[in-house]
Every structure is written in structure tokens, then in C-alpha cells.
């Protein structure tokens, strides 16, 4: 039997592996790339790029709890112009398809960034990090309104030459309205979930244990929450869903594929163990052989409700 481990990600085309690396946990730093280079990865997503450079949040930026990580990096980056300038040097020869993650404080800002990226040859697509907490002109938290999400996708779509992935925060993934708005506005895929807003206090110092007061939770503890959302959202839209949140093993990845994800993405645990994609691929392959499954999409078709 011939097993097929490739996946079709809508207008982004076919990835040779269903395993991606999540935004903020991939970087072109040499030691990391040396560990990652041979891994069976379908695509990597860059750290989120903003219009202007950002210095990020104050320390401490990370906190480790039992089976979770809380981070508040604050989107530290040099801004889109510098990103464009360095793109070929940095990403030109990494050997994996690249998806560029972007975020803005308004619909216009998203579109401006998307437009500036048109000069690049390399990327496979853009991922819109929609977890922006900013309040918009109507006094609404930018990301809390499905309509606004649709506007971002539409605006980026009309000025970008790349396919768009709409990345949802957990609170955009609790019902289908945000994903549906993104689909209608032309998104090629939906990815979910981003980190869950979280807080931890340093009680003896009477203050937050993270510099920025609160942060985002990721890691294995998130898995059942993310899985439920992937299950629901993948049934509400027709475009592919990229599932992520706490994936730490091949079994975890199979759970997401079975729940309806077309591809999976690894964040936190890929930083802890860059050889995870290979281990996951091995498990997926064993699983398919054991159960006589020929293609990845069959995994979810076999799921019995």
C-alpha cells in the first residue's frame, strides 16, 4: 500500500508533511536550525511581524507551570521593512516553506503590512494573527467582533498576492462566527488556537510573576481545549483548519487530525524538543499502517461521533 503524508492546504497548495511549526516558536537562529533542519516539516510560520519595530514586554517574559507555559514576549520584532530587507538572507535557504505571520492594530495596518510583503518571492502565505487586544475606532476590542475579522481578511486579500490564514485566539474560536467571517472574506485556511490569556502572581512580592501583568498560556494543558475548538470549527467551515495547542506527541497530533484538522502545528514543545516533527511523523505512519489508513484525511473520516 502507498501511504500519503502530504496535505492540501487550499490555495497554498500541497505540503509534503502535515506538521507545521507555530508562530513565535520558530526562528532562524543557528543552533535551532541545526537541530530542526532534517525534520519532516510542511511549513514554518515566522514570529509575528508588526508595522513598526517593537521592543517587547518587560521581564520576566516566561513562566512555567505544571504542563503549561505562560509567555508575554510582546511581539518583539524589528518591523516589516527590516523583515523584508533581511528575508532572503534569513529565510532564503532554510529548506522549509515559510508562512509570514503579521499583526496590526487596525484593518489598515494589517493591509499595509500585507502589501509591503508583496515584494517577497519566497513565502507560501500569510498568517493573520488576530489576537490583537487593541480597541478600535468604535470602542470595541478589535478582535472581539467577527465583522472586523472579516474586514481584516478582506483588506489583506485585496492587496496581498499571498493566500491568507486567519489565526484565531481561543475566544474567537468558541463559536463559529469568527471562522465563518474569515472564510467568507476569502481566507484560505483557519488556524487555531493562539494562547489563552492567563495570569500568575508572585504572592510574596504582591505582584504579577510576569512583567506584563498577564500573558498567554500554551503547552500540553491546552490540548483538550484546543481540540474541542478544532473539532467544532472544522465542522463550521469548508476551508482547511490547522490545529494547534499543546501538541507534544504523535498521539496528540493524531487526535487533532481525527478531530478535523487538515494539518497540525507545534509550538511550545517544538522549542523543548526540535526532533518532535520526526517523532510525530513516525507515530502517524505507524498509526496509518496499523489501521490500514491510506491518506491523512481518512483519519478524520474514520472518527465515530
Amino acid at each position, binding site marked *: 500500500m502507498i501511504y500519503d503524508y502530504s496535505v492540501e492546504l487550499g490555495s497554498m497548495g500541497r505540503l509534503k508533511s502535515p506538521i507545521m511549526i507555530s508562530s513565535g516558536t520558530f*526562528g532562524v537562529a543557528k543552533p535551532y536550525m541545526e537541530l530542526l533542519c532534517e525534520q519532516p516539516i510542511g511549513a514554518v510560520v515566522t514570529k509575528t511581524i508588526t508595522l513598526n519595530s517593537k521592543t517587547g514586554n518587560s*521581564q520576566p517574559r516566561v*513562566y*512555567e507551570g505544571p504542563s503549561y507555559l505562560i509567555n508575554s514576549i510582546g511581539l*518583539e520584532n524589528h518591523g516589516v521593512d527590516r523583515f523584508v530587507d533581511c528575508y532572503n538572507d534569513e529565510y532564503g535557504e532554510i529548506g522549509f516553506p515559510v508562512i509570514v505571520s503579521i499583526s496590526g492594530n487596525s484593518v489598515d495596518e494589517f493591509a499595509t503590512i500585507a502589501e509591503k510583503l508583496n515584494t517577497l518571492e519566497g513565502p507560501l502565505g500569510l498568517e493573520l494573527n488576530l489576537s490583537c487586544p487593541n480597541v478600535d475606532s468604535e470602542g470595541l476590542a478589535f478582535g472581539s467582533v467577527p465583522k472586523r475579522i472579516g474586514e481584516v481578511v478582506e483588506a489583506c486579500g485585496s492587496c496581498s498576492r499571498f493566500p491568507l490564514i486567519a489565526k484565531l485566539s481561543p475566544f474567537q474560536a468558541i463559536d463559529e462566527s469568527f471562522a465563518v467571517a474569515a472564510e467568507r472574506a476569502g481566507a484560505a485556511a483557519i488556524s487555531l488556537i493562539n494562547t489563552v490569556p492567563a495570569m500568575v502572581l508572585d504572592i510574596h512580592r504582591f505582584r504579577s510573576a510576569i512583567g506584563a501583568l498577564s500573558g498567554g498560556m500554551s503547552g500540553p494543558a491546552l490540548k483538550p481545549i484546543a481540540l474541542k475548538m478544532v473539532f467544532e470549527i472544522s465542522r463550521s467551515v469548508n476551508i482547511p483548519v490547522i490545529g494547534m495547542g499543546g501538541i507534544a506527541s504523535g498521539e496528540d497530533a493524531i487526535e487533532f487530525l481525527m478531530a478535523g484538522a487538515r494539518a497540525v502545528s507545534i509550538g511550545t514543545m517544538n*522549542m523543548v*524538543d526540535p526532533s518532535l516533527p520526526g517523532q510525530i511523523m513516525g507515530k502517524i505512519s505507524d498509526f496509518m499502517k496499523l489501521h490500514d489508513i491510506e491518506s491523512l484525511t481518512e483519519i478524520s473520516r474514520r472518527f465515530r461521533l
Partner: protein
Amino acid sequence: MTVSENCAVISNKMVSIDGNLITFYSEKIANSTLPGQFVEVSCSNGGMLLRRPFSVYDKNAKSLSLFVKSVGKGTRWLSGLREGEQINIIGPLGKGFSIDKGSRSLLIGGGCGVASLRLLSKAIVEAGGECDAIFGFRKREEIPRTIVEDFSRTAGHLTITVDSGDYPVRGNVKDRLAEIELDRYGRYYCCGPTVMLKALVPLLSSRATEVSLEARMACGLGVCYGCTINTDRGGKRVCYDGPVFTMREVDWNDL
């Protein structure tokens, strides 16, 4: 090249009241580690998510040793490792110390900060240089019992201070430093708690001084920006651009 290696524990010895010297079998990482570089040790068998960063205390062709001070869950678990257990280690990581052959150097270490100075002292001597060392500990029981022996062949003169108690010398490294002629040394290398490093800034920042910093790390690989500090060239990742920085470039007010 940075690799991931499954390393068996060769020995694990308690060398102070809260410090263990753990020696791992390692061919690849040991081979390529430079003074001041560190490794990321998996603690997943102990139920922890993240790896823990440690300087390489010593190495030879087939082994590397870490000096692990027990301060929390991960370090306590590592201190209980038994011979033969296999632990995944990633390394070497970060940018180490630069060595100046010409001049005499002073190594200044506080607590487990001494760990990053042993390979350095060896390298200085191998390069034909000379060095002295001042190490500070909080109390006598925290002094690794092998330390005098470990540094005796490489450090010309070794002073050890303790914050409390009278042995070997009461005081702290800053007091000792204030007593000596600073021009005697062409290079200073410092590693220890941030408070100690900060105290040394007024004395040493105008000189050729390198410091090895500690920071809370998530990846240790340069990708997450969890460990960023402020420098005169903007934000720098301790795990990737450091852990060794010149004392001058660091924005000490931000630490």
C-alpha cells in the same frame, strides 16, 4: 554544531550542601563546547516541561560535567539522578568568553556562577595566559569541596570569600576587588547573581570585562525571545547573543 544527545550519567556527587557535580557521557556536545557556553538539559522525565540551562563546568573527550545548585523543582530532580540514567541534552549553546592571550586575567565568580569559569581558566592557561580568581559564596557549606583542587592548576591565586562565617575569608568579592590594584589585570570575567554583577559595575565597567548572565529561558535556542535583555545595541537574547556580554554593553538598570 548544536546537537541533541542522549547522555548517560557517569557520576553524580554532592559537592556542597546544595550543589551536585553531575558528569554525563557525551561525545558530541563535550567535544565542541567552548568556555562560557551552556547546555539545555531535559527534565521531562521528572515531569517538567522546559529544559534547564547549565554552564558546562568541565569536559573531556567523552564527558561533560555540570555543577548544579538545587534551587527548585528541576535542579532538585537532577540532583537525584542515578548512574546510568539517560538524559537528553542539547548543546553547546550561546556565545562564550573571548580569550586574550596577552594579559593576566581575573575570574570573579559568585555561587553557582563559578561553573562557567572552570573551562575558561583551563583555556586561558592552554592559550599560554595566566589568571587569578576570586569566588564568593554565602557560607562555607556552599563552597564546592572540589573547587580548590579544580582551579589549583589553572588559577595562579585563588581567593574564596563567604558572606557569613569566617572561613576562608569573610566578606564578598566586591570588598576583595576594592583591595587590589585593578590595573594588574588586563581582563575581567564575571559570573554570578545579578546583584553581585551590578555591584561590580562601578569598579569594572570601564575595563575589559566580560560577564556571563543568567535569564529565565524558555527555548534556550534563540527563537522565543523569552530571555531578552536591554543593551546599548537594543534587545539581545541571553541564550543566543550571550550569555556572555561585555559589561559595558549591558543596560544594568533594566536588570
